[in-house]
């Protein structure tokens, strides 16, 4: 497959490296974008940290959609991303998911204090060192003075998706997720409920994107950025738990 037509299609393909958290929303947006512009989009999923490493080592990506703001900014400073292209495309919020079983065992409102219940042996959060949502959950619990009591109950996933697995399989009865992950989980077979945490405890987490400096497809990357910032895309994101 190396005819001129093929090469053209290949050159036109927009290659996006995206944080795995975007799995529920990004494929739909990419399809809509392809329909509109004719540019095929190819998505490589991964943890934000892993993809940052890949970009540092010349991975052939055009656009990077991170799950946080700090990573793209650092890459921008170091010259791996075009600084001018950095934009906040979505804001996520941390929620606490509690399974029905754990909820029915208590009359308490689903709040962080609920984690103290002996019925909840373990709760999941994303690895605070790697995932911004995990870090947010940790600082929230610290702020409320619950961390020292709860630290023994914490189990860590490398990503939000992994925490969602713990919740889905019932291995852990409660856990911290992004709202979009929690909505996905609620749509599935997992029985449970989630509450947003107070903004004081868990502020919105900005997710930034940026164009890879070595990209040979800057035009397409830019128009995908524009599309993601469009009212239509933002509306779709909002529907799926981003703000």
């Amino acid at each position: 497959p190396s005819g001129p037509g093929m090469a053209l299609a290949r050159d036109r393909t927009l290659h996006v490296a995206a944080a795995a958290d975007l799995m529920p929303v990004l494929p739909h947006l990419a399809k809509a974008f392809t329909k509109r512009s004719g540019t095929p989009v190819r998505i490589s999923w991964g943890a934000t940290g892993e993809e940052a490493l890949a970009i540092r080592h010349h991975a052939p990506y055009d656009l990077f959609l991170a799950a946080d703001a700090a990573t793209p900014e650092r890459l921008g400073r170091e010259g791996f991303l075009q600084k001018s292209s950095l934009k906040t495309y979505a804001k996520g919020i941390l929620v606490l998911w509690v399974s029905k079983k754990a909820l029915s065992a208590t009359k308490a409102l689903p709040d962080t204090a609920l984690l103290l219940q002996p019925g909840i042996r373990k709760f999941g959060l994303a690895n605070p060192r790697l995932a911004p949502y995990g870090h947010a959950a940790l600082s929230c619990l610290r702020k409320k003075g619950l961390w020292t009591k709860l630290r023994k109950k914490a189990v860590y996933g490398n990503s939000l998706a992994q925490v969602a697995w713990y919740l889905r399989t019932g291995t852990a009865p409660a856990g911290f997720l992004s709202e979009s992950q929690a909505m996905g989980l609620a749509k599935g077979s997992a029985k449970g409920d989630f509450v947003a945490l107070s903004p004081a405890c868990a502020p919105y987490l900005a997710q930034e994107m940026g164009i890879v400096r070595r990209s040979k497809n800057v035009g397409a990357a830019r128009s995908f950025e524009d599309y993601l910032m469009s009212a239509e895309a933002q509306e779709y994101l909002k529907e799926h738990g981003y703000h």
Partner: protein
Amino acid sequence: MIHSALMLTVALSLLTATILALLALPLAGWIVFSGGRASAVGEALLTLTLVLPPAVLGYLLLVAFSPESPPGALLARILGHPLPFSFAGLLLASLIYSLPFAVGPVAQAFRQVPPPTLEMARILGGGPLTVFWKVVVPLSLPGIATGWILGFAHTVGEFGVVMMVGGNIPGETRTLSLKAYDDLLASNGRGGWEAILPLLLFSFGALLALNLVRRSGVPHAPDLTRG
């Protein structure tokens, strides 16, 4: 922290390798000596756990061990706590994950025991179990050592399954390999050496010792080059 991760890794990998080496004996015995086609299928099935991506296997184990599933609930009642996120769960997952690596070399060694030696033991009055334990197993020690090494090394480096089933709890289920990964990513690739180094040193030491011991046991090493 490093300290406990190191201890955990040492305990987990030594235990896993040793249990595996023992488990591999009956399993490989069945594969090699039962003779039926069933055992060929069994062998292929065994090898399958190593074809599965670790994270997928971890997910499957999670589903199986979860207190929400009947076997998981039973196990949880017996152990007093659910299997995931505990050392026991980690051990079980490692055993399942690394089993084929231990069984392969042991089965290979069993296959190379000369049939006349087995016949002799049978003729002298040995039952199948006696022959197995007193003739087949001692003659297969090098293969068992290879199986131990592969099982050991594989457990030390294992990541996906341990992460899934263990929950990466510092001091409890966070092994050196998880720690190394965390450190590496958290520091954007600059750090991680303080976890990787002891990992490497420990493993290198263990493997080197075993290799030297194994060699010294060989009566006369064959020599292709002399003469």
